[in-house]
């Protein structure tokens, strides 16, 4: 039975006899030798991931101005940083958007610019006190000018993540990138067999104080990340590193179309192979790591699961969902994740990086809670009008026009014989057809691509759809596309007016 200590591994790093491999190489070694011999052969396994990590940011200290200012609001390149700290401390978060450039530029880009040595414009306001009389300041700064610049990321390195796809008939712009309609593509994140937490899923060697690779610098794990969910294999880490030591290649601001900005973070963790168990875990392969495929076409917290796939399948570029072949691509970079793991390996081999024993283990029993919502969201079914009239596609336009005159409707869902929604006509469509003396049937003038909502959707979803598509009503349909009501912008505005 092999038993090593972190101190023994560090001794080997110092005397140059250490054996280090990346997690991908380890998968092959464990497969060939078995965990027992692998534990004898290998001292350290390096892991890596490189992807969008929204819960990232940096604490910056600018030093005092003369006369001094107690900054109350601070913008860096027009991106607001949180200044509710001491006079010249701020926290700049990756997803805060620029007030002038919107979604093209955000906190993530500010951090990248600082690390790349670019100068950044600081603008700040304060309320003025006897000890901090200055009320406004504007200046340009580089990373070198700052006292401290600590990257502190509340949630990084998700153990695994879901695969996103979209069964709706609209393109969805998400934090996983654009999801094409009707299962047009599927997007995943995470580096599979290279993933830091998947190589030590019981956190036997990773904990508070573990020294890591963070964006090209030596950083530390400072605790479990927010939403840490070990019971579902969705552990996360809170990490810290010095911006001044980082390499711009591993810190990249990014912007997701119609979603917003984020930061791509390169993070790697060395795992000391202390015994056979640890070796066994680091032997994990892409074929053993599974992820759930979720339908982002449903705009709710609990999205339907369409299936489970392995990282091996995901990396092949195609997966099967409901018998349909769907193209996959990643939003994180495997190429860069490998670079992280290789750089870390290099540091250790050169004796520049030694391992640290955690001072405390990460929690293994937590579960994630959802938000407690005391307000109670009204649902579509509480607000919609039910018992509405519908019309068949083969009814004549003239007949339909009589129904408007009776004042029955503004929007009339068109349903097939079995009650399924096939289109919608508005009183305007019909009036126009009559005015142009068009003859024919409703199906010739109806809109076929109907945007719908489900009765159990919160009304905010209905409001967003109305606004997004610039329409004034949505048929409410059940799972079988049977029309059970209609919700109009008028219903919603009445509700909002009454509610405030």
């Amino acid at each position, binding site marked *: 039975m092999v038993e090593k200590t972190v101190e023994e591994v560090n001794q080997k790093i110092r005397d140059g006899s250490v054996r280090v491999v990346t997690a991908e190489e380890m998968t092959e070694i464990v497969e060939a030798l078995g965990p027992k011999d692998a534990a004898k052969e290998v001292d350290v396994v390096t892991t890596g991931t490189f992807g*969008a990590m929204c819960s990232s940011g940096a604490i910056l200290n600018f030093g005092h101005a003369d006369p001094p200012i107690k900054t109350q609001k601070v913008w860096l390149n027009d991106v607001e940083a949180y200044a509710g700290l001491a006079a010249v401390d701020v926290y700049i978060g990756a997803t805060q958007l620029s007030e002038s450039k919107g979604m093209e530029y955000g906190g993530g880009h500010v951090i990248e610019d600082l690390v790349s040595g670019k100068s950044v414009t600081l603008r700040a306001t304060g309320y003025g006190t006897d000890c901090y009389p200055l009320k406004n300041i504007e200046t340009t700064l580089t990373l070198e000018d700052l006292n401290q610049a600590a990257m502190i990321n509340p949630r990084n390195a998700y153990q695994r993540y879901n695969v996103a796809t979209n069964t709706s008939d609209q393109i969805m712009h998400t934090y996983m990138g654009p999801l094409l309609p009707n299962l047009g593509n599927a997007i995943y994140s995470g580096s599979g067999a290279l993933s830091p937490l998947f190589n030590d899923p019981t956190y036997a060697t990773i904990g508070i104080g573990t020294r890591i690779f963070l964006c090209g610098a030596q950083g530390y794990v400072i605790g479990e990340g927010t939403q840490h969910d070990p019971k579902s294999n969705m552990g996360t880490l809170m990490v810290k590193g010095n911006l001044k030591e980082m390499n711009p290649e591993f810190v*990249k601001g990014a912007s997701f179309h*119609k979603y917003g900005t984020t930061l*791509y973070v390169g993070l790697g963790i060395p795992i000391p192979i202390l015994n056979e168990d640890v070796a066994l875990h680091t032997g994990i392969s892409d074929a053993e790591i599974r992820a759930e495929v979720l339908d982002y076409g449903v705009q709710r917290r609990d999205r339907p699961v369409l299936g489970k796939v392995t990282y091996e399948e995901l990396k092949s570029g195609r997966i099967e969902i409901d018998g349909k072949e769907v193209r996959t*691509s*990643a939003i994180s*970079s495997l190429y860069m994740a490998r670079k992280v793991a290789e750089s870390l390996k290099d540091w250790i081999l050169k004796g520049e990086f030694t391992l640290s024993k955690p001072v405390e283990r990460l929690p293994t029993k937590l579960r994630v809670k959802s938000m407690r919502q005391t307000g109670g969201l009204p649902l579509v079914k509480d607000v919609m009008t039910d018992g509405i009239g519908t019309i068949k596609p083969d009814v004549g336009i003239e007949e339909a026009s009589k129904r408007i005159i009776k004042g029955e409707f503004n929007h009339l869902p068109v349903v097939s014989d079995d009650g399924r929604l096939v289109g919608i006509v508005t009183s305007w469509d019909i009036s126009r057809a009559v005015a142009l003396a068009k003859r024919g049937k409703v199906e010739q003038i109806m809109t076929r691509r109907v945007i719908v909502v489900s009765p159990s959707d919160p009304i905010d979803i209905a409001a967003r759809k109305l606004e997004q598509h610039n329409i004034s009503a949505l048929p409410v349909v059940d799972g079988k596309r049977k029309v059970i009501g209609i919700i109009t912008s008028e219903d919603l505005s009445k509700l909002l007016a009454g509610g405030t």
Partner: protein
Amino acid sequence: MKMLLHFTPQIIKKPLIAEVVLETGVLVNINKATIDVTGGELIINVPDKDVNKVIKSFKSRGVDVVTLEKPIIRVDEECVHCGACISVCPTNVFKCEVDDSISLDHKECIQCGACITACPHNALKLSR
């Protein structure tokens, strides 16, 4: 090779493509067309050997022609090789190589623009 054609409003009504096809005998493939009051813009694909003939024929009709040697341009310093562009491209321009870097094959691009907004790092641009 792909080429970008600009039509002025004055000539937009003429059946120019048909005339060029008849004159040169080259079957051009239309990849994308946008036409409005300010004129028209067309991206066509022409077999490499016939490029000169076709350009001459369009130019003689007052059409402005720009050849798109690289219809899609990647700023390599910005690219992190994530692959987000792969699954949105209708013509499979992007490919994941054995080392998991992402390569691109310009020839297939029809300038639909889908990858431009899909790239989180603003690394892709259409050439004009």
